């Protein structure tokens, strides 16, 4: 490495003690060490990015810093004083709050009730709902959420829940705010709003720990960058010294090839999937579309445009009906996940925790759950085949796991995503629908997944991709359909597929070209 590290120098140059300091932190789960000897300074009023591959230990480090987990070695100091947090509540009292990578909200409570849970405002004996709703509305507006304070969190789409979670962290004054992949579920506008908030917090003297796999964000936002690899500290650098490619190489520890595969020649074969007049949730979302073998069809739109709804409807997971659905030359009589899968169509959900993986089950059972009938022709389970499939999948999808006998919930977020991808591919589909293909996936693996999709499509299959990451949508798709308010409003092909055009079509106000890409 030719780059100068700042961690040593920083300590001598800054007279003020760091707000938060980690000294030789380690964490082991049983015999598995996931983090060893990590030392880190967080200065007052800085945005400090933590980057690393999936499973590098970023979330684990954040959990230690915020009292959500106890270290098995090393210690912490705040403002020079040693501290140890018994639980997250103590850490919050000390001014450190973590916004989890996974959504942690009570689905039955309203937005305001969630925000104020554990610290309700009261007037006399009674809770002061009006005041709480008012303050909630303010904070929500600040993070750019359109949710209402009185909506049940369970009724919100994932992205809105993520914003609510961030809003919760901003409710009180904090010293350190830790954001673990806050933008993984957000689209451009929300991301922009969030970056704005992060900057203004920094200007108020709040320190921000920021984890993201979107290196463009890191580059635009961070003051300093710490890189983790395999549970070890690689170093801390001034952000100005690093460009995205260097960050990526520090994370992965090797040179990276091109992120996106080359585009394919236009697909000319007959459509493998034709959907006409699909109507979901009693007409709230409607559309007709088709996809050809050898083609990646991207579907774009703002949050809540109804993309997820559309596909869940196609699979019969929501109340829906369709004029006709033809798949692989066969007419599908009934909208049903099982029937679709048997006919060759699979769907990878955006909600991996709630709808994708059985967090309390082992990796094998998760991997084969969808393709049980294919892997086991009889009624018996073929465990040997299952183990074999798992080994193959771990290799093929590069699932970083320290033991094959862990539960799915113990995988890092990105590795869960890879397991999920492996799971739906077990069914050997002709059409793959992927909702947010690289949510929480590190840059090295992103490229892997893009090439994987490319290989798939080149081998004559079809792929439909929904993505809130515009570069990804643009870089990957041969054709893009844009959805707005539950209807398709534009189709882009070839040269027309640009971020500006997608944003222009997706935004009802017609504000084009305001995307994050302008930076």
């Amino acid at each position: 490495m030719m780059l100068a590290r700042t961690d040593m120098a920083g300590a001598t140059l800054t007279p003020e003690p760091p707000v938060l300091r980690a000294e030789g932190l380690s964490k082991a789960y049983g015999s598995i060490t996931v983090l060893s000897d990590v030392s880190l300074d967080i200065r007052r009023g800085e945005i400090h990015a933590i980057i690393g591959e999936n499973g590098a230990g970023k979330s684990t480090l954040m959990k230690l810093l915020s009292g959500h987990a106890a270290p098995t070695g090393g210690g912490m100091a705040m403002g020079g004083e040693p501290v140890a947090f018994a639980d997250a509540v103590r850490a919050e009292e000390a001014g450190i709050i973590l916004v989890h990578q996974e959504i942690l909200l009570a689905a039955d409570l309203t937005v305001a009730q969630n925000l104020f849970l554990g610290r309700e405002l009261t007037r006399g004996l009674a809770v002061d709902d009006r005041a709480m709703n008012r303050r909630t509305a303010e904070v929500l507006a600040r993070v750019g959420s359109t949710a209402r304070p009185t909506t049940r969190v369970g009724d919100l789409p994932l992205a809105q829940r993520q914003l609510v979670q961030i809003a919760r962290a901003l409710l009180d004054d904090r010293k350190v705010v830790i954001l673990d992949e806050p933008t993984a579920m957000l689209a451009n506008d929300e991301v922009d709003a969030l970056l704005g908030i992060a900057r203004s917090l920094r200007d108020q003297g709040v320190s921000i720990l920021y984890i993201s796999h979107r290196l463009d964000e890191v580059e635009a936002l961070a003051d300093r960058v710490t890189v983790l690899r395999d549970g070890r500290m690689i170093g801390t650098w001034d952000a100005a010294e690093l460009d995205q490619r260097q960050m990526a190489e520090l994370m992965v520890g090797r040179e990276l090839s091109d992120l996106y595969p080359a585009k394919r020649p236009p697909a000319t074969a007959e459509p493998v999937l034709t959907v006409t007049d699909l109507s979901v949730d009693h007409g709230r979302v409607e559309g007709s579309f088709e996809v050809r073998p050898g083609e990646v069809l991207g579907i774009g739109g703002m949050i809540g445009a109804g993309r997820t709804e559309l596909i869940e409807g196609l699979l019969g997971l929501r109340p829906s009906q369709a004029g006709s659905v033809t798949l692989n030359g066969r007419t599908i009589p009934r909208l049903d996940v099982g029937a679709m899968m048997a006919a060759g169509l699979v769907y990878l959900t955006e909600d991996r925790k709630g709808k994708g993986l059985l967090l309390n089950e082992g990796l094998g059972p998760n991997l084969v759950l969808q393709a049980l009938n294919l892997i086991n022709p009889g009624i018996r389970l073929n465990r040997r085949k299952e183990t074999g499939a798992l080994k193959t999948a771990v290799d093929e999808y590069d699932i970083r796991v320290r033991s094959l006998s862990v539960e799915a919930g113990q995988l890092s977020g990105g590795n869960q995503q890879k397991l999920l991808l492996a799971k739906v591919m077990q069914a050997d589909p002709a059409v793959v629908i992927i909702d947010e293909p690289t949510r929480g996936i590190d840059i090295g693996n992103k490229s892997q997944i893009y090439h994987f999709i490319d290989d798939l499509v080149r081998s004559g299959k079809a792929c439909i991709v929904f993505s809130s990451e515009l570069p990804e949508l643009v870089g990957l798709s041969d054709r893009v359909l844009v959805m707005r308010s539950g209807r398709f409003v534009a189709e882009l092909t070839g040269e027309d597929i640009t971020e500006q055009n997608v944003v222009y079509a997706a935004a009802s106000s017609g504000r084009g070209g305001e995307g994050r890409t302008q930076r």
Partner: protein
Amino acid sequence: MSSADTTMAAPEGEGFRLRWADLAPFIALAVIVVIGALINSNFMAANNLLNVITRTAFIAIIGVGATFVIATGGLDLSIGSMLAFVVGIMIMSMNAMAPALGVWAIPAGAVVALIVGSLCGLLNGVIITVGKIEPFIVTLGTMGIFRAFITWMTDGGSLSIDNSLRGAYRPVYFGSLFGIPYPVVITIVVALIGAFVLYRTKYGRRVTAVGSNADVARFSGVHVGRVRTMAFVIQGFCVAVAAICYVPRLGAATPTTGQLWELQVITAVVIGGTLLRGGKAHIWGTVAGALILEVIANVMVLSDMVSEYLVAAVQGAIIIIAMLAHRFTSAR
């Protein structure tokens, strides 16, 4: 916000659907009352209605407590036996205090009942939260324990309240305030307090939070164990209030007192719209649920249509049909 246009439509729909579902138990109650009136003209007699409403008090009052427990994701199978036990202790202490205190033994005994009931609830709560055992198993165990104690206290027979107290105590069940029987007044007061605590206090907020997602509650600094335990204490307190209304009615505790009430109470709570998995609570729905059960039983007796052997079958079927109807009307 770019998606404001799509956003606005949803909440309206949501809100309406929610309110509709909340009304379901009251609509069901109305339907059953109408059917009852059609089947038998005696049903609508003021006296009959008053009887039915008055005797609903027990299940409704205990149900308010059960709503708390169930909202936290718990379950209490011991309530029937606990009632019997509290009634037994109350009668014994009233009888013991009667010579010294005279009629004042009644309020003194009531206080004893409230303390004992709360302690019984505390016992359940502590075993469940400290021992981290399924509420189903713990309260099944304490159900056996309370039942055995009352059997032992009554020697298998019955334990009657002192005759000197009987007359003074009777009005608590049979008397009325401005024409409203006391048990009904007490039920309304208990439900009002319950609704206030559940919907308007910090504690109530935390009850639903714990039931909805205990992990989230814990991360937010809620003492999950304490909230759960407190719900069981409230349950015990409500059982004691029901016991206070119960004793003046028949004046005795027997080993069969309160038998199977736990099932009735839980049914009332669920019919009322509270989810068994926790996170949602409808105090007034519970009261409506309790009324529904009593009205069905009353109509069954008043009507001559089914064999005595099959009454239970028809009751079971009606409850299932009511839930089905609810599901299909509210799902639309």
